[in-house]
């Protein structure tokens, strides 16, 4: 890698400048979470308070049964991520690497399920889960994940279609079944995409508000985002506590992403070796 020196510098400068903009909200969240009640709405532009109020954190966490909500959220998010990644990659394989009559029509049907606003399907979906007797359990929030998500099926299809056909053909010559090809060729070669899918699903489930609200009828089963909502009291919000809770809620995802993106790099080396 022999990128010119000026390019490296230009890259760093641009990235640093943009980082500041991107970090702004998080810093603001962090700063607000450490402010005293009266300081929150100070008209002066001040990100961090002179004297940080660390007590906001224990105060915020005491507000709701935090550990329990975190555990509930983790359970839902982790299972959803596993389910969506697994099922979507299988289905995406069918839509990208297998030729079968009617495939493209079915694929468009799959896409079109995303085009109807959720507001109007929410009620009939509720009726479905009610009929199944699942309302009041975690099942409506987890089980559908194991049938794949149209969004991620589309995403993985796009990635699978960039993988050269020769690789599958070579495996097929060696007598590999389609399932083998999916498992041994497709999955290893699309690690960045799979990571993205898992991460997005995890994050979506982690932050989901309406789903848990709709289907959980017992506050011992509530999730963090529902707990977060409880902070917003009737006459406005206690922003410092809200932000403290938001920080605690956001940190795991930041960490997960920071660690998860390692697989991005590994994905590249693999492609390099095999191609």
């Amino acid at each position, binding site marked *: 890698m022999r990128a010119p020196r000026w390019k490296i510098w230009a890259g760093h400068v641009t990235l640093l400048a943009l980082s500041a903009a991107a970090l702004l909200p998080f810093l603001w969240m962090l700063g607000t979470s450490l402010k005293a009640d009266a300081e929150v709405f100070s008209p002066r532009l001040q990100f961090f308070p002179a004297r940080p109020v660390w007590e906001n954190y224990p105060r915020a966490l005491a507000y709701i049964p935090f550990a329990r909500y975190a555990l509930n959220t983790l359970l839902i998010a982790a299972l959803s991520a596993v389910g969506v990644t697994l099922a979507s990659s299988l289905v995406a394989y069918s839509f990208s690497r297998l030729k079968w009559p009617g495939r493209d029509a079915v694929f468009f049907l799959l896409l079109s399920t995303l085009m109807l606003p959720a507001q109007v399907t929410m009620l009939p979906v509720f009726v479905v889960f009610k009929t199944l007797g699942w*309302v009041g359990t975690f099942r409506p929030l987890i089980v559908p994940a194991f049938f794949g998500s149209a969004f991620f099926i589309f995403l993985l299809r796009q990635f699978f279609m960039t993988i050269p056909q020769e690789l599958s053909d070579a495996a097929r010559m060696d007598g590999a079944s389609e399932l083998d090809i999916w498992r041994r060729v497709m999955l290893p070669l699309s690690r960045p995409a799979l990571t993205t899918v898992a991460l997005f699903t995890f994050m979506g489930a982690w932050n989901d508000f309406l789903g848990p609200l709709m289907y959980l009828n017992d506050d011992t089963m509530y999730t963090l985002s529902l707990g977060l909502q409880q902070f917003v*009291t009737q006459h406005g919000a*206690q922003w410092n506590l809200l932000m403290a809770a938001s920080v605690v809620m956001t940190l795991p995802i930041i960490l997960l992403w920071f660690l998860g993106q390692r697989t991005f790099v590994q994905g590249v080396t693999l492609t390099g070796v095999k191609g």
Partner: protein
Amino acid sequence: MKRREVLRLGAGALAAGALGGCGRRRSGEVLLRYWTGWTGHELQVQRDLIEEFNRSHPGIRVKILCVAGSYQKVPIAIAGGDTPDVCSAVWADQLYGYAARGALTPLDDYLARWGRSLDEWMPGVRRMLRYNGRTFALSTTANSTFIAYNRRIFAECGLDPDRPPQTIAELEEAAEKTTLRDARGNYLRYGLRPGGLQIWARVFGGDWYNEETGAITADHPGNIAALAWLQRWFSRYDIRKMETFEAGFGSLEASTGAFYTGKTAMWQTGEWAGENIRRYAPHLDWGYFPLPPPPGGRKNCVQLGGSVFVMPAACRHKDEAFEFLSWICGHYASRRFCSEIHNIPPLIEAAKAPEFQRIPLMRDAIRLAGGQNAFGPAPVAVWPMYQREIQRAEDRAIHGGGDPAALLREVQQRVQRELEEAKRYAVY
């Protein structure tokens, strides 16, 4: 009593099947599901009250669930047939829509059987809880409307702090005198931002609905006069400049709130302002007065609203549910709840309690809320849409400069049509 035992047995048989995951209950107890939209301190007080109810009512166990933060949960649960037994996550504004569609249990028979009467509630609240000749809700909180003013600023600007405005003309004068601009014409302080066509229309003698004829009266001359007055107000004070100035306001939940720091001389608010000021601006020298009317207008107007308690039609244990409803909206619970959260009790007896009466602000707020000019939402099924249309007309009149009469005529036509249609399908 027998009836309840039968119900209990029925509930026992149902527990395994229909109730599923959410109906775990101890034997011999009726489990009531209660949903509320209150959060924070209010929620905690509700929890405490419910614990007390559960202790004192051995046959019934109420389980509270906070469902705040979304419009969707309650209608979908009702539509999907998975309702709570008692629900206070319903705004007065939504009440008539639910009632007209048959989603709620009429409470009149239950009130009579439990020896309660709607007459225990303040007259305005009483009207608010009824729809089309039936009672569909009870309430445990009420509120009042008035204008708070900064006595120091009044005195500085040559106004008598002991004689706050009593007419619209005096209000206009006070606003003009207390407004302060810098050399470039930007605000350093303004007098008042009057808020809400809905209530000001009442002040101007207007009305939103005629119960006798069953007609929408959006273009009532009083409503038009009120909107024209608001429009004049905001063109005189330049709404954009006001909003630019307001953008720098802190929340009224902190000591930097605009009224506390003297950025506004007056503040249209409710009785809860008292607690806020005590907490965030304890040294503020302030007073309050009711919304002042124009000649021939209405004095002491109050906008009633807030959360109400209902019993969905699909409630499974109606007798027990009403027993709880009657208790939580009874004198004792209302008195305790309101004194904890600094609201005023809508129950006439509860409002006489010393903890409210010894605070002048609360006493006056109770008098206003209990007066003849306390108005709830217009009792029509299409009220949420009507309310949105009123707000749009207000927005368009004060921001876009539309003709008040024309705007309200438009609202009139649109809402009347929607109402006609709703009536054809109404259950109640």
